[in-house]
């Protein structure tokens, strides 16, 4: 068995399993970690296809920058616990979605197995092993084409990145703008969270009254104290 088959089977299976993990892990942090494993497996598959430069770039850019950015935002926003509604939906996804997924996979695989034929035109020459070796390696072969044939798209890429940076700064910066002040939550959101916690406390109180367990005055005192403490917390947040 050739080494490439072993790499393909081991890391292909790993990529598939971890892709399922990304979709079905209820906790966003776990999803991000499964995503790291998937991206690393795909980097190994790039290596198996002797795309050495892309393999390194995949690890540096994806797992080193993009997933870290994901984790950073998850931690910053504090949504690192599963949403009960979403857990429900993951246990019972809509039949339409499941059927659609199965049908799409089935037709794509049939297409690959039966109908797909490689184009009969003359194959290129820049990607052959000899051409890459003549250029001095995979990186040199890529750079020779990237900085000649694809020079204009390469330069346009820098405009795209600058536009992205400016957009991110405008959207997320602290200060008075259309998007409110600071990285923290706006006053309306804090109020809404407080209202929710109060209504939750009210529901607990109603249950207690129904059970006839606690004196009304004590419950009211506790409720007021809870409301005060919530208010103090939201003041601190602000």
């Amino acid at each position: 068995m050739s080494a490439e088959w072993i790499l393909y089977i081991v890391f292909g299976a790993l990529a598939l399993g971890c892709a399922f993990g990304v979709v079905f892990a209820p906790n966003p942090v776990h999803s991000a970690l499964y995503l790291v494993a998937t991206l690393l497996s795909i980097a190994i598959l790039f290596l198996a296809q002797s795309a050495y430069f892309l393999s390194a770039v995949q690890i540096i850019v994806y797992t080193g920058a993009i997933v870290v950015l994901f984790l950073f935002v998850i931690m910053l926003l504090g949504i690192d616990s599963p949403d009960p509604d979403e857990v429900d939906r993951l246990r019972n996804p809509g039949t339409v979605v499941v059927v659609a997924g199965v049908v799409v996979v089935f037709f794509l695989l049939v297409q690959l197995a039966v109908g797909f034929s490689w184009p009969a035109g003359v194959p290129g020459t820049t990607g052959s092993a000899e051409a890459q070796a003549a250029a001095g390696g995979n990186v040199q072969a890529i750079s020779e084409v990237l900085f000649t044939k694809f020079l204009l798209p390469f330069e346009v890429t820098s405009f795209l990145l600058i536009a992205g940076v400016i957009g991110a700064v405008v959207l997320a910066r602290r200060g008075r703008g259309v998007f409110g002040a600071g990285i923290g939550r706006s006053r309306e959101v804090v109020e809404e969270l407080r209202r929710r916690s109060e209504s939750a406390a009210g529901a607990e109180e109603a249950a207690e009254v129904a059970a006839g367990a606690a004196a009304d005055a004590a419950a009211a005192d506790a409720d007021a104290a809870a409301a005060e403490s919530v208010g103090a917390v939201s003041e601190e947040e602000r």
Partner: protein
Amino acid sequence: MIVAAVGDALKAGPSDNAYLVLATLIFAIGGVGFLIRKNALVMFMCIELMLNAVNLALVAFGRKLTDIDGQILVFFVLVVAAAEVMVGLAILVAIFRRRAEANADDLDSMSG
């Protein structure tokens, strides 16, 4: 005869179709995940999965056609993915500042 054919295939290494099948499956998993998840962050991760499946297919195409343009196209896809994540996460932070949650189902204030 079948055994010999399988033996030859194993010696030759995975065909280019093998990588395309894998890419198809990862793409479909990402697409289904994008449809069934509510959490906007996980939806972004599913988009990343789909982009990576396409990258895998592009490298396989490039190797089959012995043309290095496939790998260069992957490079550009990477750049676009980085820019997209940058802006997308900034939008999420801005949304989360205005609202108590970032569930895609609840972000419907612009629907008619």
